[in-house]
């Protein structure tokens, strides 16, 4: 397979999407159509993406490894690395106009909305299929521990994994 075509498929998916999984539909279409990946590859990569530390979007790294080995990892890594740099251009423009009332209003409305979408992510996670009252208790406990700001995040995760091991 041609590494350049492979890379272009990945960078196209990343450039025309936002968020960790926004590039999934485009990648699925292009890679499957070209016979470069199977549905099983996608299933496994997404499952691995749920487990790995760091940003959500690293499932693409797993997909690269499954479909093209270490070269796939390098190409997928490069493809997800480039688009976020556009934020530098955006923030340069923003700093020039941020004092304007309309820009302030836009930023405020947008910030409130973006924060509101975090609430949605949180509730999607807690009301996901397969999570019952025991899961809700774990969620509540981690909420309390995190709110206190005294317990390290990694310790909260270890405790949650331990609770899962004991009760789920």
């Amino acid at each position, binding site marked *: 397979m041609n590494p350049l075509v492979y890379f272009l498929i990945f960078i196209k998916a990343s450039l025309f999407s936002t*968020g960790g999984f926004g590039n999934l539909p485009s990648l699925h279409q292009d890679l499957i159509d070209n016979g470069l990946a199977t549905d099983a590859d996608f299933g496994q990569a997404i499952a691995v*993406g749920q487990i790995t530390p760091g940003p*959500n979007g690293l499932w693409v790294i797993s997909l690269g490894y499954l479909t093209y080995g270490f070269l796939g990892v390098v190409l997928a890594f490069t493809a997800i690395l480039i688009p976020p740099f556009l*934020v530098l251009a955006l923030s340069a423009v923003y700093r020039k106009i941020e004092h304007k009332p309309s820009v302030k209003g836009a930023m405020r409305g947008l910030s409130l909305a973006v924060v509101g979408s975090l609430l949605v992510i949180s509730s999607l996670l807690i009301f996901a299929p397969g999570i019952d009252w025991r899961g809700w208790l774990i969620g*509540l406990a981690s909420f309390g521990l995190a709110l206190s700001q005294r317990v390290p995040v990694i310790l909260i995760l270890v405790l949650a994994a331990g609770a899962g091991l004991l009760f789920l």
Partner: protein
Amino acid sequence: MKEEIAGPTAWKLLGIWALIGAQSFGGGPTTLQSIRREMTLKRGWITEMEFVHFWTLSSLVPGINMLSFAIQIGRKLAGWRGIAATLIGLLLPSTLITVAITAGFSAVQNWPPFQAMLRGILPAAAGLMFVTFLQMTRPLLRESRRQGWASLGVSLGFIGVTAAMIGLLRWPVWLALLLAMLSGVLLVTLPLPGRSQLQNPTALPSQKPVLESLSERPSPVEQQRQDIS
């Protein structure tokens, strides 16, 4: 980069990001909470408001939000070297772990204890995300509160309406964000609150109630205009 603040060295930054990247099991929610702990709470390098504004700007560019968010933090703290340190630190350990897990995944995939631990971590991530939500809401609501109770009410309305549009009505996220941005502009620029539905050329019939309800309250508009002038 024009303003180089007296921040950490790139090497120190690399170490901090590497710890964040390697420990944040549970995806975005955990990563975001870890970044907030390290950068805002513990070290005070990024203010509460900067944290929110960086995140908002990162939602407007393509690609993984967490990376464009981290790029802005790295740049503020140490310029281009800071960006390099941030991305290497955040991505190198987590990418290597991702490759290692992919290679060994079929071995642990159906191992019951592994499944059980995962079932514990997912609801914990929800709890962490909710804490981050509250923390990011705080500076925005504090700013509104200074402008009066009505402004606070409108801000809570923005959060609630957006969450309902995305979470309950399943509207695309970009549409909800666009509406919020336009409503934000309307709230500060309209001379008379009642005119909004005529002056917004892009408003579709279904969007009217949202815009109207947000812009028909006169006091926050006046208050915000006073604040700006």
